[in-house]
């Protein structure tokens, strides 16, 4: 009975597993295959970092925060520009000391932003239709995108974490030329893991975290036992702002801080669709599946498709992520780890 119920999920899993193994069967070198796989996993970690912000806010308030990508850009811009300006302003040494202080200040700015959003945008919309809240976050997105560039600038800014950009090769004795691993990506993965552990501890072990979980489970019940909803919302938006800052720092160090970060951050949408809107592990696993899926598709699926049907060509990784998310949506609407929605009749 259970197998029959889970049939579509199992079938989809089988198709994806077959797709994952197909390049090896069709003769792609194992070393290259592993490189693409690792590259996909590392990209997935970065998507997960942003997806975490989406999940946090959705869990605690039921709001789908479309502005999470814009928050990543805003936080990264604040960090990069403050690290650049602080040495001239207060005479602090450039480099790590300035970056550390800039991080603290940027975190403060994100907390302030959370408070302003709660006061001006969310509070007047309490008990409104979820679509109204979604539209409000869309408005916040455009505001932050534009306002961020107005005050911080629209050039490409650097965040220097002091990580070597040179490639690192592993398993050189097994594969010709070795397998490429990026130190930046590895450190990003470690930071993401650290952040997840930190969030888990915060949710499980602190009174505020437990209050957040209570609000997530049932707003009205939480309010009835004296948990202040507004304060909780400020906290959760502040935590999401902090997550955005960490994501912005890692991405900014890798790609440079520029407007495109906000667009890239929207890659977290298929991640949360796939992983489930309410699940932190879902954000992580979803990110990894999307990261691997899109890189594999771009490298191994796109070129043969173009050749076979004489297509015009073009990058496929951008839309392939959404195809994957759609497939999951069809067989498991609540996502891999999302809570199943049951209505009592």
């Amino acid at each position, binding site marked *: 009975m259970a197998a029959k119920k889970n049939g579509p999920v199992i079938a989809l899993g089988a198709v994806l597993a077959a797709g994952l193994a197909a390049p090896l069967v069709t003769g792609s*070198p194992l070393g*290259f295959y592993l*490189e*693409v796989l690792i*590259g996909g996993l*590392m*990209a997935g970690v970065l998507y997960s970092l942003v997806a975490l912000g989406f999940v946090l806010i959705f869990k605690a308030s039921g709001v789908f925060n479309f502005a999470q990508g814009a928050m990543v850009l805003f936080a990264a811009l604040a960090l990069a520009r403050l690290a650049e300006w602080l040495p001239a302003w207060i005479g602090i040494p450039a480099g790590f000391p300035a970056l550390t202080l800039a991080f603290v200040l940027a975190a403060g700015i994100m907390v302030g932003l959370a408070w302003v959003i709660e006061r001006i945008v969310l509070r007047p919309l309490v008990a409104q239709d979820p679509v109204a809240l979604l539209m409000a976050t869309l408005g916040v997105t455009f505001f932050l995108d*534009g306002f961020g*560039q107005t005050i911080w600038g*629209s*050039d*490409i*800014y*650097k965040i220097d974490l002091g990580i070597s*950009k*040179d*490639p690192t090769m592993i398993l050189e004795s097994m594969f010709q030329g070795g397998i*490429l691993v*990026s130190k*930046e990506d590895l450190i990003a993965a470690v930071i993401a893991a650290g952040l997840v552990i930190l969030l888990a501890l915060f949710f499980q072990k602190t009174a505020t975290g437990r209050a957040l979980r209570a609000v997530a489970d049932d707003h009205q019940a939480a309010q009835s036992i004296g948990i202040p909803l507004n304060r909780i919302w400020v906290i959760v938006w502040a935590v999401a702002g902090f997550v955005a800052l960490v994501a912005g720092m890692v991405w900014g160090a*890798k*790609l*440079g801080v*520029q*407007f*495109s*970060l906000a*667009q*890239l951050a929207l890659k977290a949408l298929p991640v949360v669709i796939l992983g489930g809107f309410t699940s932190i592990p879902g954000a992580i696993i979803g990110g990894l599946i999307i990261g691997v899926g*899109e*890189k594999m598709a*771009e*490298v191994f699926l796109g070129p043969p498709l173009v050749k076979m049907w004489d297509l015009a*060509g*073009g*990058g496929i*990784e*951008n839309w392939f992520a959404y195809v994957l998310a759609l497939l999951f949506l069809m067989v498991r609407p609540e996502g891999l780890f999302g809570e199943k929605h049951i209505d009592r009749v």
Partner: protein
Amino acid sequence: MKLRISIAAAAVAAVTGALAPAGAAFAQAKEQFFPVLSYRTGAYAPNGVPFANGYVDYLKLINARDGGINGVKATWEECETGYATDRGVECYERLKGKGPTGATVVHTLSTGITFALTDKSFTDKIPIITAGYGRADSVDGQVFKWNFPLGGTYWGAADMLVQHIGKKEGGLDKLKGKKIALVYHDSPYGKEPIALLQERAKMHGYDLSLLPVTHPGVEQKATWLQIRQNRPDYVFLWGWGVMNSTAIKEAVAVGYPRDKMYGVWWAGAEPDVRPAGDGAKGYNALTFMAPAGIGKVHQDVIKFVHDKGQGTGPKNEVGEVLYNRGLVAAMMSVEGVKRAQTKYGKKPLKGEEVQWGLENLALDQKALAAIGFAGFADPISTSCVDHEGGSSARIHTWDGSKWVVGPDRYTADQQIIKPMIKASAAKYAQEKKIAVRDCAKELASSK
């Protein structure tokens, strides 16, 4: 009676008031209006801002130093396109009717917007200058009356890059069996050079692989893993904005040598290399028209514009690659007007009249030196048949702090390009049902 007088007085006052601005407009009518389609925000802002600053600074210089274009004051209005075709068309529609004679000439600053506006140009009769970009087939003035890809097209750029690496290898015949990868922006801009590179591949026997990068170009891991796997002998980079610096960073990440990378002239400015830090050392790109540096025109811009507190952007960007290209683009607009004034008089001109000026440009070294562009622009000589007016470029290399211009100058091989232009333009004319101009007849009738 008193009431009637009051009403009459009020009516007179109202009419006088209403007419006053019109009178002022007539008084100010000796103006030439330039729409400025720019992008100062968004993914391509790092490249769009210095170009726009250079363009506007030159118009300011013309007014401040020369008192306008032969006494006709240059006016302009910027509109933010965000490098998006729909917003570009919207900006064009908003600005095309402004000024006493409407828009003089439009620089689309985007191949996508160029494609969209080309169709409109036949009815709007406003020239489109696409210096170093746009559609390559618009060189053919017999079909594309209103388009002016002055100084170069992407087919020319791709041709010159192949010539350069052919020279490096010891001859074009040595390219046989070599592997060239084109990493391109997945847009009309990025796709433009493909036809020429494929044509050259047939001729010289090199293996061309096409690696598209989707907008805005910050995700290139898969692309560069393929490059690491295939180890092409050369990578041609056809990017714009943040895509360029990301490509260089990814090249560092996979250990692909930067000295084997060659960017088009829109992938060879300071915002493309600085974010990559030391990793960009050795990276090459074509330089079109204006390399980085300070010449007479820059000194004038500093003296008449920046030192008067009128500079559009920061003073230290004067002389950078994209700023210079903005200056050159504005110079082309102004010289087109000046040339048209020789036929139509020193007054505000319509787009249709400026089209004649642009089609009869004769800017040789001497003329360029006279306007302060010696060493910062190449001669342009256009005609009814040829709307490009010459195409040459050099290679410059980033040494970690500045661009170093190489000694060789390349000229696009017209024997290869012309038949391609003819075929593509003829196809366009047929599709759009455009009457092809008879340039010989037009020339004879104008004499």
